[in-house]
């Protein structure tokens, strides 16, 4: 990897939800919703995140926007290419250094003394979203927005559409008074809503219309990056297509960058430039749309893609049906997490976790046999 510049990048991101129990609410384990994943998104592209329910897609999306705090790792935003290159070098050096002893209950990590490590620390402080203070982060939120899956619970039922869409403008002091109303009208028109419906409440709209309100709200601050968390899975199929096409148009027009989360492979194929396949909190395969759909390498991806319906009754193909259920993320299988359901399982799979390796042209796969 050269000194290419990414809009947003997650490095060794982990998110554990502690499991507590008993009288004293003692922590006895954790759900490893996201377990050490790294990926990047370039300016203007759409990255798809696909996987079964419970694999950590939504958590990843929320963590990217700091809507829930990370357990470990960093998320870098708008880091210049040369700085990134330097950081990768320094990180390699850091890994070669002896690991400092883990302190208990010390929240503040002291500044490192080694000059290189100090530089690394400073880079991280400067570009990592999760290390920003609340006020800076709040201001940065103008540039990154989210559209939620359920258009019924994501709009405040006690607010008028005008206020739902206009509130961010007011809070960030972008516009005032009548200007806000004008902008809201414009946005409503842009997402295909009747601007006369300004003074209505969310419950007076249908599901598709509510999702359009959600999109208009996300667009109001002219963001750069939008997380689309299954934006169409709660909608009728006919409405899904409308919303997806609208999102595509908006992207072309405004140069938006999307993280598109979905469990529906056909939608991912329609929307995305690159795809990450997740299984139990890990990325198992990552590559361009063509890589993943036409030449899937990981057995999990192969299985997923083999069951996409194809509108051709003549076509005969092998369908791989996965046996069994997804194991619990609180107690994931040893070694390769997919080995309990894998057709090609060997002994090594139970022992060693395969790393995510480049198999050519940026097509990454985590499997011992590919």
């Amino acid at each position: 990897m050269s000194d290419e510049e990414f809009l947003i990048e997650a490095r060794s991101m982990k998110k554990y939800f502690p499991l507590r129990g008993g009288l004293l609410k003692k922590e006895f384990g954790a759900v490893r919703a996201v377990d050490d994943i790294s990926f990047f998104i370039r300016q203007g592209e759409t990255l798809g995140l696909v996987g079964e329910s419970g694999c950590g897609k939504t958590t990843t999306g929320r963590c990217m926007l700091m809507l829930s705090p990370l357990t470990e790792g960093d998320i870098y935003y708008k880091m210049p290419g040369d700085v990134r290159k330097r950081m990768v070098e320094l990180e390699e050096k850091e890994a070669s250094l002896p690991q400092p002893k883990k302190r208990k209950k010390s929240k503040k990590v002291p500044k490192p003394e080694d000059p290189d490590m100090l530089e690394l620390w400073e880079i991280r402080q400067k570009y990592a979203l999760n290390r920003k203070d609340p006020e800076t982060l709040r201001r940065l939120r103008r540039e990154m927005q989210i559209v939620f899956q359920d258009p019924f619970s994501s709009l405040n039922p006690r607010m008028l559409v005008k206020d739902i869409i206009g509130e961010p403008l007011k809070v960030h002091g972008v516009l005032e008074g009548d200007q806000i109303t004008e902008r809201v009208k414009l946005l409503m028109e842009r997402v295909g809503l009747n601007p006369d419906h300004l003074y209505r409440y969310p419950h007076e709209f249908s599901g598709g219309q509510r999702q359009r309100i959600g999109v208009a709200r996300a667009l109001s601050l002219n963001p750069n990056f939008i997380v689309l968390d299954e934006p169409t899975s709660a909608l009728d199929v006919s409405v899904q297509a409308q919303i997806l096409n609208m999102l595509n148009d908006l992207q072309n027009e405004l140069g938006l960058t999307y993280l598109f989360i979905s469990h529906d492979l056909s939608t991912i194929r329609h929307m995305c430039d690159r795809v990450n396949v997740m299984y139990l909190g890990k990325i198992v395969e990552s590559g361009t749309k063509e890589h993943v759909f036409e030449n899937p390498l990981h057995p999990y991806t192969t299985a997923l893609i083999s069951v996409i319906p194809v509108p051709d009754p003549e076509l005969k193909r092998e369908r791989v049906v996965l046996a069994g259920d997804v194991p619990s993320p609180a107690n994931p299988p040893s070694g390769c997490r997919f080995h309990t359901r894998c057709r090609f399982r060997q002994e090594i799979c139970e022992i060693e976790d395969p790393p995510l390796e480049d198999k050519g042209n940026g097509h990454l796969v985590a499997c011992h046999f590919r």
Partner: protein
Amino acid sequence: MRLTSFIIKRLLLLIPVLLGVSLLVFVLMGFTGERWTAYTTTDHPKQAQIWAIEEKYHLNESIAVQYYYWLDGIVHGDWGYSKQARMPVTDAISNKFPVTFELALISSLIAVIIGISIGTLSAIKRNKPVDHVVRFVALIGVSLPIFWLALLLLQALYLNLGLAPSGGRISLEFDPSNPLATTPLIVRTNFYTVDSLLMGNLQIFGDVLWHLMLPAICLSFATIALLTRIMRSSMLEVMNLDYVKTARAKGLSEKVVLKKHARRNALIPTTTVVGLAFAGLLGGAVITENIFSLNGLGKWSTAALLSNDQAAILGFTMLIAIIVVLANLIVDIMYAYLDPRVRLE
């Protein structure tokens, strides 16, 4: 316009409710003793007097006919004579209702302010030490018997510290029923707080509030506990919803997120409970009123029950039924105002 027709419809509904309640109580009262006892003031009337009463009030007729005459009286403003209060039931109600209403209002206010704020706090600081303390105190609040708490507070604040009055509504020097009072309160509405303000005498107003404080705090304890728990759980529910996350993603400060987006929505279920708790306080401040010697509805109704004061019991029951129905009506209207999804129909 929709609101007016809604209110009218609901008020019309009051008629069958009141008929049902009164019929039930009227029939049941028939089993508690001779009906004529409700109309005498002496314990041992002469036989002739009894006959005269039975004749006058149609007590020889069937219960249906008796009920008809009683209802006729109710409609025409004759609610009978309360021998306990030694005045007509209507006078007794207008005399005692203000006492209880002031008490219930103040104690509800205390409960709403404290209950909602600590309920919210407890939800925000979920599973932190503050939350545990609040929940523990709330549990104690529901479990403490009010008579014990009232006596304890009296002992501490009146007897030991002298910070509170022993009871009653007003100090002797302002008491309108005290012929030796220096500046007696001029009674117009019988709401002493209102009357003192009408007089323009802030000293008396303060004195009235000072008398209300201790009983109101006592009475508010259980309601505080109830509201805290409701507020906490409904706040927790709302805080998990996506629109609160949306609000954070918009870049609102945490304060605005919690106040404007979470708390406003969490208040909706709490409102219902406040309305019904208030109606409950109006009807049931029996123990508090007795301990703090407040001559309100609670004290009157228990005394009436114990002395088979039938007119008073019937009148009191009707009043409570009206209050509960009205409280429900107000809650429903508030609901429609608070939650745009609710339509009045």
